[in-house]
Structure formats: structure tokens, C-alpha cells
């Protein structure tokens, strides 16, 4: 038998297997698959090996094969729930298909060409655009979104409402976090996760580049807390701490006030003499906020509260080599 014949045989057998799994509601037992689906070997061990490989292949395409556990191993059955298999028809026009295809080709997000092509087949294939500018974006420049190994597992956790566990590094060290992921956000070149932290019992934001090791997911629907309709916008590093927020008041001079506003757009602020601006910033992570303020060099000054002002003076005095502030 030539390899080509073998490959065609495998294709036909897997099509028949998928048809059999889709055509049952209670599930079909392995023994019945062996008898009724054409292409399987009558020898039990040989059948089992081929069947397990076929199942693995189908799962890797995303086929949702369910195992219906029976009273004994022999009664274990398999099925594919059509409502979980079928992609509802998005009803895409050809220019819309072309635009989505172009978007996938334009923006690199760490997915392979093959995977993107497969996504397009499922949506109805790739067609040439009927309109000249399907993207409606006036740029020819390549856009790149950095990828992160935690992205896909966390995306699944968000869309399938699964809880997630991972090791997370902060200035205090690495600790295990158990969270209900709500939302992924890409801003200022960085991915963050908004989630309900089950041990701290409130929303926390996590930087994906601080997640260490694998993200472990629980079952679908294992989240208890619904995502709030408006999430706290806390994408700044000084809001990633675990302490209670302290209002810190900082003055930025005229030279940098407008850049400070971009980072602190959600904070209250008031104009001060000479074009400078004073911001009230809720801070849960002082070292991160200190770094932010210091990045403005002598254009920024911590005004209040007194102990934070003193902390900044002590920090600078230590660098200056003075014995006290």
C-alpha cells in the first residue's frame, strides 16, 4: 500500500468516525465504533491504537468529543454535541471576509499562517475584496502585537468562564494566584488581565509578563463572580499592588504636564501656577509609583501625604549618599 493510499484511508475513516459521533445523542461505545465505522481493524488492540490516534487528531482540530462514562469501561461512550461543534453562520459578505483575512495577515499576534488560513476556511473561505480599502485603515505599516504564552489559556478562561491558577511575580516575590479571569487588555505595549482574585476577594489586575510558568485552567463555567459591566481601569503599574490605595498628590511642571495627563487621565487634577498641574493618584504599589514619578526627573514632586514625601526624600538621600534627608 502506498503512503498516499494510507493517507486517503485515514481521511475517510476519520470522516466516518466524526459522522458517527455527530449522529448520536447518547453516545456510541468503542465496540460499536469498531463494528460500524468502516476502516477499523477487527483486532482489538490494533483498533484501540488507531481509534485513540483518530480521537487525538479530531481533538486537535477543536472537535468537542465528549466522553459519556458508563457503569463499566465497556459501556463508556463517545459523542459530539452538534451545538458545541457548529459555528453559527456569521453571514459574512465577501468584502468582510476579505477584510478579516487582511487583518489576520497584517497584524502578527503569534499565530501561524496555517492556523490563520484554517480560521478563514471555517468562516467561509478567502475571497478577493470587492472594495478597494476593506480595512478602512489609512496605513500600510505592519503592526505587531507582542505575544505571550499566557495569552491563549487566559483568553479561553475569559470566554469559557474558567478559573485559572498561576505563579505571579511582584516586588514581594512569587506567589500562587487563583483568579476568575474577566478581561484581557493591551495598552501601551503591554498585556494585562483583569480578574477576580479569589483569595483577596476583589478585582486585581495582572501583568502577563509577570506570570511565571504555566496557567492551569479549571472546568468550563467554574467562575462564580460575574464580570462587572464596567471594569476598574487600573492598567498602571502603581495600581498592581496588594496594599489599600493611598491618595498621593504629585505636581508636574509645565514641560511634562501634558505627558503626565496621558498616563493619569482617570485621576483628578488641578491647574497650578506656571502651567504646572497637580494630580491626585490612588497608589497601591509605592515602589512602582516612585519609579513613575522619578522618570520625570526634576519635573515632578510628591506633595502629600507627608510620609510618602518623606519616603521619596529618604530614597533620594540614600542615592545622594547623604546620611539623612
Amino acid at each position, binding site marked *: 500500500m502506498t503512503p*498516499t493510499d494510507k*493517507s486517503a484511508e485515514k*481521511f*475517510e475513516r*476519520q470522516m*466516518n468516525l*466524526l*459522522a458517527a459521533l455527530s449522529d448520536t445523542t447518547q453516545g456510541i461505545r468503542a465496540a460499536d465504533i469498531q463494528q*460500524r465505522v468502516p476502516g477499523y481493524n477487527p483486532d482489538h488492540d490494533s483498533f484501540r491504537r488507531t481509534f485513540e490516534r483518530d480521537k487525538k*487528531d479530531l481533538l486537535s*482540530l*477543536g472537535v468537542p468529543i465528549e466522553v459519556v462514562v458508563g457503569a463499566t469501561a465497556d459501556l463508556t461512550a463517545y459523542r459530539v454535541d452538534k451545538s458545541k*461543534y*457548529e*459555528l453559527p453562520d*456569521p453571514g*459574512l*459578505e465577501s468584502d*468582510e471576509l476579505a477584510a*478579516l483575512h*487582511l*487583518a*489576520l495577515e497584517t497584524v502578527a*499576534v503569534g*499565530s501561524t499562517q*496555517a*492556523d490563520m*488560513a484554517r*480560521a478563514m476556511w*471555517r*468562516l467561509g*473561505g*478567502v475571497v478577493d*475584496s470587492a472594495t478597494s480599502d476593506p*480595512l*478602512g485603515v489609512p*496605513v500600510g*505599516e*505592519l*503592526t505587531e502585537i507582542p505575544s505571550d504564552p499566557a495569552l491563549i489559556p487566559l*483568553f479561553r478562561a475569559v*470566554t469559557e468562564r474558567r478559573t485559572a491558577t498561576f505563579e505571579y511575580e511582584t516586588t514581594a516575590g512569587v506567589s500562587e494566584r487563583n483568579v476568575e479571569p474577566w*478581561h484581557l*487588555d*493591551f*495598552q*501601551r505595549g503591554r498585556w494585562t488581565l483583569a480578574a477576580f482574585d479569589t483569595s483577596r476577594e476583589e478585582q486585581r489586575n495582572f501583568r502577563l509578563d509577570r506570570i511565571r510558568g504555566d496557567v492551569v485552567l479549571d472546568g468550563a463555567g467554574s467562575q462564580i463572580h460575574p464580570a462587572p459591566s464596567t471594569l476598574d481601569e487600573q492598567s498602571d503599574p502603581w495600581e498592581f499592588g496588594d496594599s489599600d490605595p493611598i491618595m498621593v498628590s504629585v505636581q508636574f511642571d509645565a*514641560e511634562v504636564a*501634558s*505627558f503626565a495627563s*496621558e498616563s493619569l487621565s482617570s485621576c483628578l487634577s488641578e491647574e497650578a501656577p506656571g502651567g504646572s498641574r497637580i494630580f491626585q493618584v490612588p497608589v497601591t504599589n509605592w515602589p512602582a509609583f516612585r519609579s513613575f514619578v*522619578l522618570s520625570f*526627573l*526634576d519635573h515632578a*514632586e510628591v506633595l502629600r501625604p507627608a510620609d510618602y*514625601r518623606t519616603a*521619596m526624600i529618604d530614597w533620594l538621600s540614600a*542615592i*545622594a549618599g547623604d546620611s539623612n*534627608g
Partner: protein
Amino acid sequence: MADLTAAERLDRTLAIVPWVANQPNGTATFSEIGERFNIDSDDLRDCLVITSMVGVHPYTPDVLINAIVDADTVSIELPDYFRRPLRLTAEQTFALLTSAKALLSVPGADEDSALARGLAKVLIALGEASETAVEIAIDTASDAITEQLRSAIDNRLCVEITYYSYGRDNTGNRLIDPWTIHSEGGLWYLQGWCHTSGAERIFRIDRIREVTQIDRAFDVPDPVPEFQLFDSSGVNGRVTLRLGPSAKWVVEYYPTESVTSEPNGAITVELAIGSLAWFERLLLRLGPDAVVLDASEGLDAVGPASARRLLAIYSE
């Protein structure tokens, strides 16, 4: 059939079969299918001939796929399975949503474009959970400034920009030949020739405060030099730092000349310093976590000097 793996063939066939069955009279031509699903006629024919033999026990007509393969058309009628394509995997959904949202967040993107309409339909098909799962903001650059730069690039006209230089820590006006706009790591940059400094420069668009088009034409170099964010040509010295364990991020964030680990967990790194203000920020931020072991002339006392300068503000 030799070119396709069994998995590719299966994946594509599971998309082609429902698509054909949904066409008028369940019929489509080979060329139409071939173009849409990027598959050559011979492969397609093989796949469809095999598909016509697929069915389930007891193989009565109501549970068989009815596929008629002619010279250059195929007609398909389906039983109660394979009627819709397979759902997208998490990787596929993520790539689709992220790429579409990224482009739509570009300043000036058309909200009524085919992309926006397509994304809206896909979100409905994917269900509620996907709708708010991911948000992308490419940058905070003002639409107006980006528009003005684009128009200057298109018209090959010079611009004067008011720019805050992070490296020099000052704001000033510069005359630029704007070559291209480029996005990297979620931020937008202008690449061009800076007449003020007499060299090629890259500017972060969100640090440009004002743009004025100047009625003076320029030529874009062909090819445009490669876009490189880290440019070491402006190096004005080297330093060797000992970093405590909590300052190791420096190695991940910045290009280093050399890194040596010490048994106590500390590391020694050698950095090329291209900007004094950048080095000041690094030392102020690291504080006691960084000790300067060796430095080029003029860089050895930067930490204490800048700390004293900042302390002066606090004593006023």
C-alpha cells in the same frame, strides 16, 4: 493528494462541504471552491469523491452524504451532520479578534469599514463572552497629529514638530523629513530625517505636541533604512553596574554588553549609555539595588548628582 496532510484535508473538507451545501441548489464549481479554499482541483476532487462515500450505520439514504462529483462541479446534500463548519479554536478566535481590533484601534480607522462590519458579525456568531474578552489600544497618540503626519508623508512635505525628548529631557522644535510611520510594541513612531540634528531619527508620536507642515519638498531614501528602535550609534559611554536580585529586570528590558552572575544572586552588567537622562532615570529608579562599579568619564557620579538635584526641589 500527496501534498496535503490528513489533518489539513480533514479540516478543509469540513469547511468546504457545508459551504457547498449552502450554495444555491447545493452546487458549486471546482474553480470557485479552489479559489476560496486554496485547494487545487485534483486534491479537491479526491476529497469530494471520498466524502461521497461517508455515512453512518445503517447506511440508509437519510444518513448518507449525497455528493455528486461531475467534471467541474459538485452538488452536495447533507444529512443531519456536517451542516455547519467547525467552531474556531481558542487560538483562531484570539488571532481574529486581536488583529481586527488592533487595526480598528488605529487612529483614523473607518468605523463603517468592511472590517468593522465583519468583526461585529463574527462577535455575534461567537457569542457574548467573546465580545468583551479582549480590548486593544495601539497607542495614545492624538488622531489629529497622526493625520497631519500622514498627510505630510503622502505629500512629501517637511514638518516642524514640537517634541519632548525623553533622552535629553527637554522640549524643542525640530525640522523633519517624515518618511514613514511604524508601530512596534503598541506604540507609534515617526521615522525620518531630522534637519535639526543632521541625522536619521525615530520619534514617538505620543511625545509630539504640535505638527506644522512646511512648504518644502523632500525625497524619501530608497530603500528607507531599516526601522531600529535601539540605536547604539549615539553611545557616549559605558558603565558596569552590580545589580541586586530584584533589579534583574534591567537585563530583560535593555540591551546589555555583558552579564555576569555572582554566587550571592547579584549580577554584574555592562551597559552602553546613549543618553544621560536615561541613565539618571535608571539609577534613581534602582536606588540601592544598583552600584556603579566602573564608568566612563563623566558617568561615574551621575546617580548622586541627579539625586541631589531632585532633593533641591523638595527643600524649596
